[in-house]
């Protein structure tokens, strides 16, 4: 008994020694940054900024004055030095565990972001579910400074916008790393830009997708719709609205798509010649009908469906061609299709994929199924006689 009583404190003492678990930091000794930015200055140094929370201003609303956050910056030859400069101004430990946004200025993105990524992957406090945003036509700091009226902490806004328009959030850092480490593919990042809204202050806007090359340098952008088509091909989208002009019916038809599917078939047609057949499927419903067609009749609905499928196929093909010829970076997952469907050939092709990719022959078939037209059967603004049954 005496033995056991003595061994108990010993065990606990061992517990203390064998682990490094003395990282107790009170909440009041932590500074949470919910967003940060890095920019390349003209003299080649880095400027980092962080949007830090002021906890005492969180509750009680704006009544006690001022924003619930402040921005602190640091400037240095390397990232660590810049962060260290920031720390010199902060009374609390920087805690990055809740940082969901990281803004990169356009100049920084063009210069290449590999140094940044190394710092990210080494820091254990860094969150892996992180969205890195490229700020189109601006500096990361500009995005940090934007005051977004709907959210208390403005850095929450881009994530929520991204989710609200049907994208996949919180995976862009991970996706970037995966794309850059797999053979053949090129990484992408989501893009925001800062626009003058209707209100006097500037606001943040989800723009689309930024395409990087293998040296982690920005080569170009896909705009919102193009980015959405790409997400459709990768099946990472939950909501998309399409509006197409139907000249023969004399108006526009708008469709909301909420189920998505994609099948890619690849064929090798010759040495270093690849053909891709992309079938995008989806189902949706009619949300807008400015034509004189009564969509309750199956014939008219099929007509609209066919027309939308044709138009969308053209747009998707245009997007793919743009990626192939202009950016010459495989961000469409073609490398994975090849790897899965022709593993033997892929071994040979993957070394020269950068030259093969732009020459791939692509055919796109959009196969959208309009499931219902809603309870408003025919456009109410037209007279009964004008409606084409």
């Amino acid at each position, binding site marked *: 008994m005496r033995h056991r009583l003595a061994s108990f404190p010993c065990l606990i003492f061992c517990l203390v020694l064998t682990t490094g*678990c003395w990282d*107790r930091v009170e909440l*009041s000794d932590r500074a*949470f940054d919910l967003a940060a930015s890095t920019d390349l200055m003209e003299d080649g140094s880095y400027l980092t900024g962080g949007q830090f929370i002021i*906890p005492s201003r969180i509750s009680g609303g704006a009544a006690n004055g001022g924003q619930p956050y402040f921005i602190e910056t640091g400037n240095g030859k390397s990232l660590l030095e810049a962060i260290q400069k920031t720390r010199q101004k902060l009374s609390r430990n920087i805690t990055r565990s809740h940082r*969901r946004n990281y803004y990169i200025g356009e100049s920084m993105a063009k210069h290449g972001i590999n140094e940044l990524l190394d710092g990210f992957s080494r820091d254990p*406090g860094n969150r892996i579910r992180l969205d890195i945003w490229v700020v189109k036509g601006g500096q990361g700091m500009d995005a940090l400074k934007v005051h977004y009226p709907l959210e208390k902490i403005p850095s929450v806004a881009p994530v929520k916008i991204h989710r609200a328009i049907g994208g996949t959030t919180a995976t862009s850092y991970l996706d970037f790393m995966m794309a850059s480490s797999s053979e053949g593919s090129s990484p992408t990042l989501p893009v925001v830009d800062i626009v003058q809204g209707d209100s006097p202050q500037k606001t943040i806007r989800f723009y689309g997708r930024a395409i990087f090359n293998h040296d982690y340098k920005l080569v170009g952008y896909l705009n919102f719709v193009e980015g959405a088509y790409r997400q459709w091909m990768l099946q990472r989208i939950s909501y998309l609205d399409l509006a197409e002009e139907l000249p023969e019916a004399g108006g526009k038809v708008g469709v909301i798509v909420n189920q998505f599917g994609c099948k890619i078939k690849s064929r090798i047609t010759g040495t270093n010649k690849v053909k891709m057949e992309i079938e995008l499927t989806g189902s949706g419903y009619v949300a807008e009908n400015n034509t004189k067609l009564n969509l309750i009749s199956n014939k008219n609905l099929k007509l609209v469906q066919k027309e939308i499928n044709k138009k969308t196929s053209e747009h998707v093909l245009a997007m793919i061609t743009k990626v192939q010829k202009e950016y010459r970076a495989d961000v469409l997952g073609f490398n994975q299709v090849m790897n899965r469907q022709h593993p033997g050939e892929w071994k040979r092709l993957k070394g020269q994929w950068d030259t093969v990719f732009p020459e791939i022959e692509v055919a796109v078939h959009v196969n959208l199924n309009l499931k219902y037209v809603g309870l408003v059967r025919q456009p109410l603004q037209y007279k009964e006689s004008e409606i084409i049954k």
Partner: protein
Amino acid sequence: MTAPISESLEENEELLRGTFRNCYDIVFRRIQGPKNFLLVYMDGLADAKALDNMLLQILGPANSSNSGELMEHGSSGEMLEQQLASFVKTTLAETMDDVVHGILSAQVIILSDYTNHAIIADLKGFEQRGIEEPSNEITIRGPREGFTENVNVNTSMVRRKIMSAKLKMESMTVGSLSKTTVVIAYLEGIAKESVVEEVRKRIRQIQIDTVLGGNFIEEFIEDHPFTLFPQVQNTERPDIVASYLAERKVAVLIDGSPFALIVPCTLWSAFQSADDYYERFIYATLIRWLRMVLIIGSLFLPSIYVAITTFHPELLPANFLLSITSAREGVPFPAVIEALLMEFLFEGLREAGIRMPRPTGSAISIVGALVIGQAAVEAGIVSAPMVIVVSITGIASLITPRYSMGVAFRMLRFPMLIFSGMFGLYGITMASLFLHIHLTNLESFGVPYLSPISPLSRQDLKDVLIRAPRWSMNTIPLSGSKRNKWRIPKGQRPGDQGDEIL
């Protein structure tokens, strides 16, 4: 004083007066006649009314000839005893020792001339509490009777629940001064013989002066004295005793205590309430789950709060964390100190609530609610989330239907808090590991404390994590043997019989 009873009444009286000197409550009543009688009893313990009635019956005019004959003739006590037996329960005493014991246990002693026996007439009639609803174990649909301080009443209540000759009640006397009656109740052929024998042995070995409550016995017979977990269960309800007896357990009833002890006992009884069996089984199961979540929550909640906020804030969603951070802003203490302080205060309030005189109750609740709830938060000494955590914990720790089991969880909260304050979630994991090792080491009268979960016995699980329907609980728990396995016949599920009712 093993002296034999003398034939001389005077001698006996003198001896008894000597034994009971300075006892104002002893009564000597001499009845003169052809043959002299001496009645000795304790005032207030014996039923004086019944005694007078008895005397009237024997000595009264209706029986005068008969009794006269008896008085003249009967030199032996047996005759009188036979006569008395029609009115009261009587026994014969041979020694002075028995006489003294009889007087002390509220009986009336009848001594007479020329006899070396004494008649002990059972005329107990002291004041006692009536049968009331037990205040600690309340049920909605169950019976409303609870044990009293009188062991005879208690055994009768159990006997009324189990009208079977298999129900054995062995009486023992414990306590050199108190001479308390302790009754071991079990069902012969159902209870584990080894457990019965062990209980018998352990109670026989007790050497104590007074037994004033169940715990006096419990502390002598439990297996592990230095643990926070009770290995003997106590209950105020005869229905609980009866149900446990049918589940092969042994009950110990103690005179003077309205609590019966039940052995063996496992941890899972902390989650079982009497009402589980009086409500329909789906509801009872859900309520049992609620109880489990809250009891285990009361053990871990403050520690998890401290660990997450001080070690692992990344585990919280951002908005939640921001609310907590803003509430903790300006609080002077580290979270673990704050938690300890509040838990300490809460326990203090609770203890005060139990012990205080009734009229001061409102004062305590006002001061408690105001000081802990409001003023401390407004003064910025304690953060509001901590108050919420402590009050949830407080409510959760009060939910346990077995008070003595709940005490263990209440106490363990504090070491858990210290571990979490030192090592975070890692510390909580380690502390739970230690707790598990400890619990698996415990056993109560040969039954592992965590059984039937560990060691696993699948049939018995029907009353642990869920409360299975009655017709499904058809095996005897704690069995382990093939013999006597079935408690009730299988296949009694309603609806199995077909559609006869149509």
